[in-house]
């Protein structure tokens, strides 16, 4: 029986060999044939020579989480071949270069040899380019074996090379030659194939860092300061690329500034200085940068300065696994800095939310006059995801409580006075031309008039107001996404890029009679709906990609009366979460002493 549009392909290569083009072309061709697809790059912290894997999942049902079983393996890296071959599911396929001397002993898979060197040589491209075009051979062979439309491959090549025909003409003949060779020499005995559908009509494919950059641009970012760090660098790169197209006036002058700072400390200082002076300021970084920015984060919280900090999370602590994914910075961001702080955190779970929170974060930061963290991660940020086209912001920029010179002259001004009872004071921007508009911003103790104060009551008043201010944000921040099943005894709680794995796991569990509700948290501090959700279920599993169960602990602290209902399912091995892991964990937990699932 044929297996149509439902399998995972893995390409194993040494990094720096130029396989990224081949892999992205394959992904885009499949996607453009209407097959719901996702691609994940598992790469080392290295420029050339270390093992890299690229996984493409096709799923007729539209599941896009990583799958740990591989059906089709392309072995281009002798170093990992023996390990890779064991990861192929029984009944799967292994493609490898005919010159490779592998001693495979598995008899439950199909082998196809590919004349990689020969076709690359015959292509006539220079020997220097040959290693790169060699990767096009597996594109052609795979197209033949699976039935991928060569026209879609050519379109994808052209898209990838931004229409530069010369580059298409260098690569396409090799793909065609490999395709033709395969048609004549390979007798297909495996069950896998693709068929065109309309399931991706109206859908686009984009990575979360580009989505975030676009969100920032449409959110009116004016100052971006950053320091290169994987996996956030492409956010800054995309911002640079698109701002240069979208954000100049008629005279060609920029309505933004992007500064590559000398380090993350300086990047944080620049956005705090810029936010103070009235810019929509942001930075993008990852864990080590978050650590360096913590002093300024506390300053921004205490002195009440808007700024947006994107944390594209990777595995920590320390250098950790710099090119692998985790959700390990949740508490580090929420409570960043010495002293008592609690920062607003936005938690996008898909690329559309990366765009939306990209612009919304500025409104929230200016509304609450505080640094706002947005926690994306490597999987969301650097990999390609299907999405509906992004929605244009549905409201104008909200600059928060900023007084004009006239307002100051009319009503006077005290920087840290809670006039409205919401904990949010009024501010003026430097350069506001009214006697009385200025104030003294400081990280040291201050009173309502922003004067230096070590008075115990001033400190308490100020800190209580800040507490109240952050609390007052909880129901205005992006609300949790809730799918509540009335008959379900258990609930799942998660955030961020684990969403696809949880969705798939719930379906698979439901198939075997285990019903579950699901709440995806999208901001900290959490809405009261979170405690309602926990209260409405017997057991709530908090699923997250870190070791300590950070969201689990945070919710236990915030809702101690519900703490015993919360069960932590925390897992972090550097790879995106799979549905299988979730299903197995739930079954283990839900199975009673008699081996039966609890009801």
């Amino acid at each position: 029986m044929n297996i149509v549009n439902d399998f995972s392909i893995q390409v194993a290569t040494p990094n720096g060999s130029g396989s990224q083009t081949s892999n992205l072309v394959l992904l885009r061709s499949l996607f453009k044939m209407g097959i719901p697809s996702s691609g994940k790059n598992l790469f080392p912290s290295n420029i050339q020579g270390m093992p890299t894997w690229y996984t493409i999942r096709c799923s007729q049902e539209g599941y896009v989480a990583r799958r740990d079983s591989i059906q089709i393996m392309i072995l281009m890296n002798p170093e990992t071949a023996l390990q890779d071959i064991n990861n192929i599911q029984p009944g799967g396929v292994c493609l490898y270069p005919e010159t490779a001397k592998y001693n495979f002993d598995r008899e439950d898979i199909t082998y196809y040899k590919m004349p990689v060197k020969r076709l690359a040589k015959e292509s006539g491209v220079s020997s220097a380019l040959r290693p790169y075009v060699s990767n096009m051979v597996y594109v052609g062979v795979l197209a033949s074996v699976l039935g991928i439309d060569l026209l879609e491959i050519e379109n994808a090549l052209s898209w990838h090379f931004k229409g530069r025909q010369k580059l298409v003409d260098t690569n396409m003949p090799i793909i065609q030659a490999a395709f033709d060779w395969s048609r004549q020499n390979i007798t297909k005995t495996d069950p896998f194939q693709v068929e065109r559908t309309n399931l991706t009509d109206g859908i686009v494919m984009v990575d979360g860092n580009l989505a975030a950059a676009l969100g920032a641009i449409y959110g009116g970012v004016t100052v971006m300061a950053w320091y290169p760090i994987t996996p956030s660098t492409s956010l800054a790169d995309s911002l640079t690329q698109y701002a240069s197209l979208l954000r100049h006036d008629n005279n060609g002058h920029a309505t933004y500034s992007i500064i590559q700072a000398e380090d993350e400390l300086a990047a944080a200082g620049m956005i705090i200085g810029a936010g103070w002076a009235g810019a929509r300021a942001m930075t993008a970084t990852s864990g080590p940068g978050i650590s360096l920015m913590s002093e300024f984060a506390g300053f921004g919280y205490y002195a009440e300065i808007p700024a947006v900090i994107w944390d594209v999370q990777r595995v920590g602590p320390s250098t950790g696994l710099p090119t692998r994914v985790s959700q390990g910075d949740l508490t580090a961001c929420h409570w960043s800095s010495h002293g008592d702080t609690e920062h607003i955190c936005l938690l996008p779970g898909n690329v559309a939310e990366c765009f939306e929170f990209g612009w919304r974060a500025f409104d929230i930061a200016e509304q609450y006059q505080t640094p706002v963290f947005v926690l994306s991660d490597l999987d969301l940020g650097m990999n390609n995801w299907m999405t509906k086209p992004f929605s244009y912001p549905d409201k104008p920029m909200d600059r928060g409580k900023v007084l004009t010179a006239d307002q100051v002259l009319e009503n006077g001004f005290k920087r840290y006075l809670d006039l409205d009872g919401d904990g949010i004071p009024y501010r003026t921007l430097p350069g506001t031309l009214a006697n009385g508009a200025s104030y003294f911003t400081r990280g040291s103790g201050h009173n309502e008039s922003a004067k230096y104060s070590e008075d115990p009551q001033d400190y308490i008043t100020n800190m209580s107001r800040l507490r109240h201010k952050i609390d007052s944000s909880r129901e205005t921040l992006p609300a949790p996404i809730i799918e509540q099943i009335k008959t379900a005894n258990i609930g799942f709680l998660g955030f961020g890029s684990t969403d696809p794995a949880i969705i798939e796991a719930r379906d698979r569990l439901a198939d075997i009679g285990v019903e579950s509700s699901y709440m995806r948290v999208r901001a900290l501090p959490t809405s009261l709906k979170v405690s309602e959700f926990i209260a409405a279920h017997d057991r709530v599993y908090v699923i997250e990609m870190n070791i300590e169960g950070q969201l689990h602990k945070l919710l236990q602290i915030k809702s101690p009366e519900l703490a015993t209902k919360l069960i932590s399912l925390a897992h972090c091995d550097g790879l995106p979460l799979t549905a299988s892991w979730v299903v197995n964990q739930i079954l283990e937990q839900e199975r009673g002493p008699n081996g039966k699932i609890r009801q």
Partner: protein
Amino acid sequence: MAKSGNNTNLIGLEKQDYKGSPTTLCAGCGHNSISSQIITAAFELGLQPEQVVKISGIGCSSKSPAYFMNRSFSFNSVHGRMPSVASGAMLANKDLVTIGISGDGDTGSIGIGQFKHALRRNTPMLYIVENNGVYGLTKGQFSVTADEGQNLKYYGKNDLPPLDLCLEAIVADCGFVARSFAGDPKQVRPLLKAAISYGGAAFLDIISPCVAFNNTSDSTKGYDWVKEHDDPLHDITYIPVQEEITTQYEPGETSTVTLHDGSQIVLRKLDESYDPKDKLGAIQALHNSNSEESLLTGLIYYNPDRPNLIQTENLVESPLAHLTTDALRPSEDSLSQIMSGL
């Protein structure tokens, strides 16, 4: 708001409008003299106080923005990080006048990186280091500008050579590098005015004695030593844009420097051979001065040709902070186009 009369400046304000809160620094602290020179310079230049931002780091010097120009905006930031905050503020609003106040610890130790990078970017700001060679707020540790071999009460002998912040500034390609002494208001004031008018990063290293911890007769940061060893390069006169040069000088005796805003400084040479536009000459002069145990003061290095950060960034005419949704949010059509191109 504007007043007129003999005691008012170009924009109709009195000197009182540039004053700060009473100082909490020690009596006799050099920083207080610098604060009062800033007050005078800002008053005489006719700066709009609300258009001025005073940004500092942490330390005694960084407290001093509270003691001048109360009508200006102020930002007492994080230790060693004044330059990044100032850079951000200038990017947000290029029309601000930024006065950065720092100390030798705040700039030379914890902040040496940000110091050099802000100068390298040519961030438009007056960058003052109130240099006393010692940590005051933490009670008397050596700073990075302390003299080699110097002895202090609690911390004993300093074994390490000092950093010369003017040398560091020149090497970082700062285009306005000057040194002065808090006890010499006649020199400090025109240098402050010139630095504010420069249009890029202007660095002023002002020796500012710490009477509590480092004012011994053998300290190169003490009042007595500086008075004895001060070696000014020139007498400096600042000529605002509106005024003409009236004093007659002998040819060859003076040189005139025209600043970014059209104002000028006239340098009456005390050292015939010195040319502040000669970078290597400036470095050599600082080196010689350090080995001869004298204090070279005046405009040490000047280069008007580097574009400042705002120019490098090619920013629009209106400050970024003033731009509204219309100017900042691209059209809905443009988003649709991007989406269809994905």
